[in-house]
């Protein structure tokens, strides 16, 4: 039977014990389309992709590739059948060069015609421009590893697909955007016809996203099919041809991009209308809470991470700091919290110079750190124990340093109720919670001290829409209580939406950008450390 679908799932179900992760999903992929998959965390997106990629096998149902029934037992099978996946956590070896990474991947898959399914039924192998090139690629399954051939192959591929990638540097030294290109090149080296991209734009700046979309169009022109998984509604609407929405393991919608508005798609994802964040006009009170003057901080490699930064935050406002990861945000936040030594300049809180983290916290500063798993919580501790980790809570539940268990539990139970932490069991270890509930534990602990200043770094990273909204409400509440919030985030939309004043951090410099908040392009330029041309 002839079919136009390059990939088709028929009534695929995957259960883990009692849990039905993917529930009777049927799904078709047209050759050459960019197909977006939308869904909350836990909607079954990852499980579905892992089924297609051979990491899991379906409990029921069938998977067809190019009209043929396939039983994919491993990613290796899937790759041999023309799939490629760019994981959110890259499968790249940082200490090898770009060319070595590509060679390593290629060496696992024979491109020799006789014993490979790779080229069967496919139009044109990208490595078959001429005899010589094809010989090179089949050499990679042999014993010898030739660096110059690996370099040549990388160059050929990056030229063919119009991606500038230098084969020589170590992958670890590349930017995230370039690493992503290497991942895509890797998949193309074995002629992947279907590329699965898992949250590919989460780590990119607006300019990088633009370049990335260009790459997707090039792939599309080459008649390759792309599955694009994302949270970001705007990007999905911009790039995709069709959209599928998953909710609680079920497919709830598939349709052409543009048929439904963003609002309607969100409703499909959540199954309910999402109340818009009601943002009252802020009443900024002319009293600085945090005053930073001429602050400079050195990073871990002795480089200048924060360069001569001055700013203030006032009561009743949220000050946003946007920027691409790794431009000094971490060092900036940590120096405010007294966790990093300051090279020059001063940090004052409510007019006081403070130095140690303890005195900073005692002066009413709360902190939601960047990485909740490594610094926000202790995974093996219970919810109750995590909630009393900071000094003021500890002092409340402890008498002469001995913890009063009953006070600990009543305090914890109150906080669990107020912040809606689920499941509401104070004895449960935090690592058993979902990311959203882990973050609620952090927010509960930090905000229940009623701080004067809240420093929040990427507070919604990895959270789904409803959990992110909870965090946003908490930040706004803090502002409405006439406290001060410093929000440092790589999610540009979040910063634009919440902040009363806006800064951009780029290569350690802090630039006020409140006037440009309506121009993504201008802010994008600032994020890349460029000047803004006059016409913007």
């Amino acid at each position, binding site marked *: 039977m002839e079919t136009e679908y390059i990939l088709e799932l028929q009534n695929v179900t995957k259960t883990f014990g009692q849990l039905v992760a993917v529930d009777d999903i049927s799904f078709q992929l047209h050759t050459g389309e960019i197909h977006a998959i939308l869904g909350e965390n836990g909607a079954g997106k990852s499980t579905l992709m892992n089924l297609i990629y051979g*990491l899991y096998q379906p409990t029921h149902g069938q998977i067809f590739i190019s009209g043929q029934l396939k039983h994919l037992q491993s990613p290796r099978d899937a*790759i041999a059948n023309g799939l490629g996946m760019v994981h959110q956590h890259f499968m790249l*070896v*940082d*200490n*090898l060069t770009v060319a070595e990474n590509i060679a390593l991947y290629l060496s696992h898959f024979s491109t020799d015609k006789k014993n490979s399914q790779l080229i069967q039924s496919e139009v044109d192998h990208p490595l078959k421009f001429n005899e010589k090139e094809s010989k090179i690629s089949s050499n990679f399954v042999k014993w010898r*590893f030739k660096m110059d051939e690996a370099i040549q192959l990388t160059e050929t591929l990056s030229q063919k697909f119009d991606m500038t990638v230098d084969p020589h540097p170590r992958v670890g030294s590349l930017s995230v955007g370039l690493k992503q290109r290497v991942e895509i090149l890797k998949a193309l080296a074995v002629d992947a016809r279907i590329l699965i991209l898992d949250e590919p734009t989460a780590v990119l700046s607006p300019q990088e996203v633009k370049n990335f979309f260009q790459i997707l169009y090039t792939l599309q022109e080459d008649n390759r099919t792309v599955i694009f998984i994302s949270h970001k509604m705007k990007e999905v609407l911009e790039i995709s041809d069709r959209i599928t929405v998953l909710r609680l393991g079920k497919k709830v919608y598939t349709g052409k991009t543009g048929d439904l508005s963003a609002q309607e798609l969100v409703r499909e994802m959540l199954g309910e209308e999402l109340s818009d964040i009601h943002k009252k006009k802020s009443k900024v009170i002319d009293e600085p809470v945090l005053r930073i003057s001429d602050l400079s901080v050195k990073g871990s490699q002795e480089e200048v991470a924060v360069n001569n930064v001055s700013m203030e935050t006032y009561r009743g406002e949220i000050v946003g700091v946007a920027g691409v990861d790794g431009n000094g945000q971490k060092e900036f936040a940590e120096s405010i919290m007294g966790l990093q030594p300051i090279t020059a300049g001063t940090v004052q809180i409510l007019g006081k110079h403070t130095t140690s983290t303890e005195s900073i916290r005692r002066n009413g500063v709360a902190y939601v750190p960047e990485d909740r798993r490594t610094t926000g919580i202790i995974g093996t501790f219970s919810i109750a124990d995590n909630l009393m980790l900071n000094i003021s809570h500890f002092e409340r539940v402890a008498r002469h340093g001995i913890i009063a268990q009953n006070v600990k539990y009543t305090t914890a139970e109150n906080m669990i109720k107020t912040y809606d932490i689920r499941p509401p069991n104070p004895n449960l270890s935090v690592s058993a919670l979902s990311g959203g509930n882990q973050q609620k534990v952090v927010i509960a602990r930090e905000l229940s001290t009623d701080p004067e200043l809240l420093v929040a770094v990427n507070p919604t990273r990895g959270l789904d829409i409803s959990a992110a909204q909870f965090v946003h409400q908490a930040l706004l509440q803090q502002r409405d209580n006439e406290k001060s919030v410093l929000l440092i985030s790589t999610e540009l939309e979040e910063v634009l939406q919440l902040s009363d004043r806006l800064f951009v951090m780029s290569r350690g410099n802090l630039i006020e950008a409140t006037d440009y908040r309506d121009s993504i392009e201008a802010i994008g330029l600032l994020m890349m450390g460029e000047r803004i041309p006059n016409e913007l």
Partner: protein
Amino acid sequence: MLLEETLAATINAATPLLLAALGEVISQRSGVINIGIEGMMLMGALCGMTASFYTSGIPLIAPWFGPCVGMLAAGLAGLVTAGIFAFLAIKLRGDQIIIGTAITLFALGFTQVVYQRLFGSTGSPKSVPYFQEFELPILSKIPLIGQALFSHNIIVYLSMALVPCVYFFLFHTQPGLRVRACGEHPKAISTFGSNVVKLRSMCLLFAGFMAGIGGGYLSLADVPIFTPGMTAGRGFTALAIVIFGKWHPIKVFGAALLFGLGFALDALFQASGWEIQYQWFLMLPYVLCLIVLTASSYKKVNFYGGQAPLSLGKPYNPSA
């Protein structure tokens, strides 16, 4: 004269260290920190000497036959010991440090018991046929360094020949590329279809074989006897050599020579008849080890680059 003697003694002392360290480079590059080298060397030393002792009694065979069989037995003893390590640490994903330590402690006791059962606890240690030194034609006639460099037993030359071989394997072959990737990001190559457990086990078995041969060198070439605990920290020194040599075969060769010098000076000073308690000289290689490792961990001293594989010592769980 003194220079010549020192040089020759250095090379002699460096050989077992180099053999064990080359194996360890491969093992650590694949992500397994084999801290049981000391134990594997001891097993090698005992089995090598025993095999040579029993096979050399047979009449009408060439005198080199015993030591060769011994060396092979030494390697196999190390390999089998490494097999236990591989099963516990790679297959069952136990803690590599604890298992390695256990293996070393086990080997210390085991070799002593077996040696006493076979050769008795009293009397002088049994002497066995061993590898004879021979002079390489022409080269050994070079003035000054000829005798020092080119008048050794066959194992010395073989171990040096192995240095470029290991280098070529790691950096110019497909399996070498996989071994390097395996120590950095095992999950990646696992999703490409490599079997991480198998790859790491192979590397560890090689390390065990090499450690066994290193031990065999001690009882079949250095001094043709076995004494319990005769490795005297050389296994741990090989571990230090790998770290100081930045997981690179050529640099490891240099590091092995430096530590070999430590052991050589120890022996030379003891023989020099100086009026100093000999324990001071015994300390020498280990003090050198401390100083070198401390210094090389400072950025300013570590000018020659290289860093530990990212997943070194981390058990790999394929289903996680």
